[in-house]
C-alpha cells in the first residue's frame, strides 16, 4: 500500500459521478417499488416493528450506491487521497438523489393514476412509501433515509478498516440471522436451545429490537477481538507442507461429513425437507457440472434426464402405473434407471454432439421440451399417464427403514447417499484420463482431437454420466413426492440448475454444492420453496439478475475453481503474476 495523500476538499467532487450513481440508485429504487417488492414482501418481518423484507428490498440500494460512489481504484504508484468528509458528502448526495426518486414516485402515485398498465401504481405502494403517514412525510423521509444510508455506505471507506469490517460483519450477521430465522429456530430447537430462539426472535417472527442491538454489539466485538485470527489460521494452513495439508484437508472433510450425517437428527421437518430438496439439486448440479463445467457442453435440456429418472421409477414401482406396473423394488429400479438414462443420453447426445456450442444449446433445449411433451401427451398417456401423471409411487423400502416423502429426514439420507456417489464420480473422473480429455475439449476441441482424443466419444461419455446423475435425482424425486407430473419438468428447471452451477462455480465440486445450498436453500427451486419463500415470483427475477451479475463481475462463481477463474481473468491474472514475479518471461536457461 502506498502513502495516502491528505483528504481532498469537501467540495472537490466528481459531480458527474454522483449524478450517475444517484440516478442509477433512483432508477433501481423506483423499479423495485414498481414491481411490487416492498408491498409483497412486507409480510416477512425481519426486525419486529421496524424492518420487513419489503423495506429491506429498498434500503440496501442507497447503501451500496453510497459505498460504490466513494470507492476508487487504488493504483500502484498513483497517490490516492485519504477518505474523508468529501466522500461522506458524495455518499449522502447519491443516496439523496436515490431517495428523491422514491419521493417523486410517491408524489406521482398520489396525483396521477397509472394503475392501468402498472399493477403496483397502487394505494398500497403509496402507503408503504409514506410509512402510513401522508404524502408530505413520505417525500421528506425518503430524502432523509436515502441520505443517511448513502453516508453510511460511504462511511465504510472513511472508518478505520477494522471498524468498517466490524460494522459490515455485524450488519451481515443481522441480515443472515433474520433471514435464516426458520433454519436457526429449527436447528436450535433440535439442540434443545429454545431459550436462545425465544430471546432472539419476537413471538410472531423477526428479531426483536433488543436482540438486534445485542447481536450487533456482540458480533462487532467478536470481529474486533478475533481480527487477524482468521488470517493467521490461513497463513498457518498455507505454510503446511503437502502431506500435512492433505491430512488437514482430510480431517476437515471428515468432520464435515460427520456433521452432515448428524445434523438431520437435530432438524425438524421443514429443514429436513429443505435439505432434501437442496440435495436433489446438488445431485442435478453435479451432473450438469460434468457436462458444462468439465466438458464445456452447454446442455439446456438437462431436465429431460431428471424426467426420465422420475418416470422410469414411477412406471416400475407404482401400482397405479397405467402401462406395466411390475412394482419392482427401488434397488432394482435404480439399475434399470441407469441403463435407460444412459441409453437416452446416448440417443439424444449422438445427433447433437458434433454441433457447435450454441446450436447444441438450442437443440438440447428442444429435446428437453420434446421429452416433456411426450410425457404430457395424450398419445402416450396409456404409458405415462399424460397430464394426470403417475401417482401412488411407493416409499423406498430399505429393510431397516422406509424412505418416504412424509419423512424428509429419510429422504435426505437417501439423497445424501446419491450425492456422495455423484461427488465420488465427479472427483475420480476429474483426475482420470477421461477427465483430462474433457478439459482438453473444453479448452480447444480441435487441438484435443489432433492430440488423439476421440472427442465424440469423450463428449458422449460426459453426456451419459451427466444423464445418469440427473436420473438418480429423478428417481429419488419420484419416490419422495410419491407422484409425478409433467409440470415438474419445465425448461425452467434446466435453467435453474445451470444458474446453480454457474453461481457456484463451473467445474468445481465444492462450488456447485455451495451454489445449490445458497440458491435452492435460500431462494428456492423452481417448485421448491426456500427459506425466503415469501419471495414468490421475485425468485426468478433474482435468479436472472444474479446470473447476469455473476457473468459480468465474477464469472468464476462463488467458489472459484482456480483454473476456471484464470481462464476468465487471464489478463488480470497475468498482470498480477507479473507483479509478483511468478510469470515465466525468462528466455534464459533457468539453470545451467
Amino acid at each position, binding site marked *: 500500500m502506498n502513502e495516502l495523500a491528505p483528504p481532498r476538499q469537501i467540495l472537490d467532487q466528481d459531480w458527474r459521478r454522483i449524478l450517475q450513481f444517484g440516478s442509477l440508485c433512483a432508477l433501481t429504487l423506483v423499479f423495485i417499488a414498481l414491481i411490487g417488492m416492498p408491498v409483497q414482501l412486507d409480510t416477512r418481518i425481519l426486525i419486529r416493528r421496524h424492518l420487513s423484507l419489503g423495506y429491506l428490498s429498498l434500503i440496501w440500494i442507497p447503501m451500496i450506491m453510497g459505498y460504490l460512489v466513494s470507492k476508487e481504484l487504488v493504483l500502484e504508484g498513483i497517490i490516492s487521497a485519504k477518505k474523508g468528509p468529501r466522500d461522506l458528502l458524495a455518499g449522502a448526495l447519491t443516496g439523496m438523489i436515490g431517495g428523491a426518486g422514491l419521493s417523486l414516485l410517491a408524489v406521482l402515485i398520489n396525483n396521477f393514476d397509472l394503475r392501468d398498465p402498472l399493477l403496483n401504481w397502487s394505494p398500497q405502494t403509496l402507503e408503504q412509501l409514506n410509512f402510513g403517514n401522508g404524502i408530505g412525510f413520505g417525500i421528506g423521509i425518503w430524502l432523509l433515509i436515502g441520505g443517511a444510508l448513502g453516508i453510511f455506505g460511504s462511511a465504510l471507506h472513511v472508518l478505520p478498516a477494522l471498524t468498517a469490517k466490524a460494522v459490515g460483519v455485524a450488519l451481515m450477521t443481522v441480515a443472515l440471522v433474520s433471514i435464516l430465522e426458520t433454519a436457526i429456530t429449527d436447528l436450535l430447537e433440535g439442540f434443545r436451545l429454545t431459550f436462545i430462539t425465544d430471546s432472539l426472535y419476537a413471538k410472531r417472527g423477526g428479531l426483536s429490537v433488543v436482540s438486534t442491538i445485542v447481536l450487533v454489539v456482540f458480533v462487532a466485538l467478536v470481529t474486533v477481538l478475533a481480527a487477524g485470527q482468521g488470517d493467521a489460521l490461513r497463513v498457518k494452513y498455507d505454510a503446511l507442507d503437502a502431506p500435512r495439508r492433505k491430512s488437514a484437508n482430510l480431517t476437515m472433510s471428515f468432520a464435515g461429513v460427520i456433521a452432515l450425517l448428524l445434523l438431520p437428527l437435530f432438524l425438524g421437518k421443514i429443514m429436513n425437507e429443505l435439505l432434501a430438496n437442496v440435495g436433489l439439486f446438488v445431485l442435478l448440479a453435479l451432473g450438469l457440472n460434468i457436462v458444462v463445467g468439465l466438458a464445456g457442453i452447454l446442455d439446456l435440456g438437462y431436465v429431460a434426464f431428471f424426467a426420465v429418472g422420475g418416470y422410469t421409477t414411477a412406471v416400475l414401482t407404482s401400482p397405479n402405473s397405467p402401462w406395466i406396473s411390475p412394482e419392482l423394488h427401488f434397488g432394482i429400479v435404480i439399475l434399470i434407471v441407469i441403463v435407460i438414462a444412459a441409453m437416452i443420453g446416448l440417443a439424444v447426445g449422438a*445427433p447433437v454432439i458434433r454441433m457447435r*456450442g*450454441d446450436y447444441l444449446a438450442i437443440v438440447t433445449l*428442444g429435446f428437453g421440451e420434446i421429452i416433456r411433451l411426450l410425457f404430457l401427451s395424450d*398419445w402416450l398417456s396409456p404409458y405415462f399417464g399424460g397430464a394426470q401423471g403417475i401417482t401412488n409411487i411407493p416409499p423406498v423400502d430399505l429393510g431397516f427403514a422406509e424412505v418416504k416423502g412424509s419423512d424428509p429426514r429419510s429422504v435426505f439420507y437417501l439423497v445424501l447417499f446419491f450425492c456422495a456417489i455423484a461427488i465420488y464420480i465427479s472427483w475420480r473422473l476429474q483426475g482420470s484420463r477421461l477427465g483430462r480429455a474433457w478439459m482438453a475439449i473444453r479448452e480447444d476441441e480441435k487441438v484435443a482431437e489432433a492430440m488423439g482424443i476421440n472427442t465424440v466419444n469423450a463428449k458422449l461419455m460426459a453426456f451419459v454420466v451427466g444423464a445418469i446423475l440427473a436420473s438418480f435425482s429423478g428417481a429419488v424425486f419420484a419416490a419422495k413426492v410419491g407422484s409425478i407430473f409433467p409440470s415438474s419438468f419445465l425448461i425452467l428447471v434446466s435453467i435453474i440448475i445451470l444458474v446453480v452451477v454457474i453461481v457456484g462455480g463451473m467445474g468445481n465440486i465444492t462450488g456447485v454444492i455451495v451454489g445449490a445450498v445458497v440458491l435452492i436453500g435460500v431462494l428456492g427451486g423452481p417448485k421448491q420453496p426456500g427459506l425466503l419463500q415469501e419471495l414468490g415470483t421475485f425468485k426468478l427475477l433474482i*435468479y436472472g*439478475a444474479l446470473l447476469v451479475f455473476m457473468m459480468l463481475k465474477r464469472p468464476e462463481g462463488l467458489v472459484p475453481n482456480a483454473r476456471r477463474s484464470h481462464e476468465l481473468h487471464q489478463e488480470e491474472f497475468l498482470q498480477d503474476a507479473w507483479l509478483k514475479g511468478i510469470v515465466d518471461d525468462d528466455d534464459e536457461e533457468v539453470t545451467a
Partner: protein
Amino acid sequence: MTAVGVRSTRRVSWVDRFLTTLRIVLIALIVVGLLAFIAQQIDNDNAFARRRNPGATGLTAAQVKGLFVTGVAQGAMYGLIALGYSMVYGVLGFINFAHGEVFMLGTMSGFIASTKLSDAGYWESNFIGSFLLIILIAILVSTATAVVMERVAYRPLRDSPRLIPLITSIGVSFFIQNAVLGLFGPNSKSYPQLPEWLAKNRTILTFDIPGTKIMVLVVAAVSMAGLWWVVERTKTGKAMRAVAEDKEIAALMGINVDRTIVLTFAIGGAMAGIGGILWGLSFRSVTHLTGFLPGIKAFTAAVVGGVGNLGGSMAGGVALGTAESLGPQVILEPLGVKGVSQLRDAVAFTALVVVLLFKPAGLFGERLSEDDRA
C-alpha cells in the same frame, strides 16, 4: 475449414451408424406419414390409411389451405424475430437468448399504447394512424431495450469465451420476463378490437385468408425489403457485413465496430418490435411469457434457415411455421398419433433436428466468419 472433396474412405463409427439410422427412420416416418395422408385424402376409407390410423377422417382442401396460411403467417412473425438473432449471431457469434423478450416488450408497449388510444377513441376513429403510431412506439421500445441490453450486459463480455454471453443472455431474458411480470402483473392483456374492414376474410387465389394474416404478411414483406435495402445498399449495411466478417480488420478499415454492433442490435430490435405488434394484433393478447417460446422458435427458425443469412432466416421462419402448423396433421395424425396438436412444439424441434442432421449449416447455408464457425 469445410471439407470440399468427396469423403472417400471415412471410417464409420457407431455414432455415424446411429445417425444414419436416425436419418433413415425420420425420413421413413415422414414419407409414410405423407403417403398415408395422401391416401386418406384420396379416399377416406383407404385400407393403407386405415391401417395407419383407424380413426382417420381426412381434411378438406379448405382446411389444408387454412393450415398453410396460418403457418406462413406465424412463420413470417418468427422470421421477423429470427432476423435479430441472425444478425447478432452473424456479428458477435452468440445467441442472444433475450431477443425474445425484446419482442415481448414490443408487444407489451403496443398493448399499452393501443389501449390508451382506444380509451381516447382514436383507435376507432383513425385506425391507420393508431397502427403506425403503435408500430413506432414498439420499434422505439424494442430498439432501446436491445441497445441498452448490448451496452450493459454484452459489451463487457465481448472477448470472453463464447458460452459466457449466451449464459448472460439467459439471465437477461429471465430478468426482463419477471420484471414485466412484476410491473404489469400475470394476467393476459387484450389488445382492442381491430376494425371490421381489416379483420374480415378475403379470398386471394382461392385461399380464404383472414385480414389480420394478410396484414402480417404484407408488413413482414415490407420490413424484410427495408432490411434488405439497409444491409445491402447502405454504408451502414456494408459496415455491418464487414464487422461480421472480421472485427479487427473492419476496425483497421476505419469502421467504428462498437457503433456498428449497437446498430445491429438496434435494427434487430426494430424488427422484433414490428414482429411484436403483428403478434399483438393477430392474437390480441400479451403476457410476460409472450416472448419466451416464440423467441426460442425464432432462433430455431434462424438455425433452420442458416444463421447469418437474412433471407434464410425469414425463409426458415416461414418453413418452421408451416412445418409446425401442417406437420402434426399431415404427418403425425395419419401415423395414428392421438391429440397431435399437443405435439406441435415437439414437431418444430424435431424439424430442427432433421434439418441439422441433413444440412448442418441450415437450409440456405450460414454466412458466418471463420471464427464464428469454430
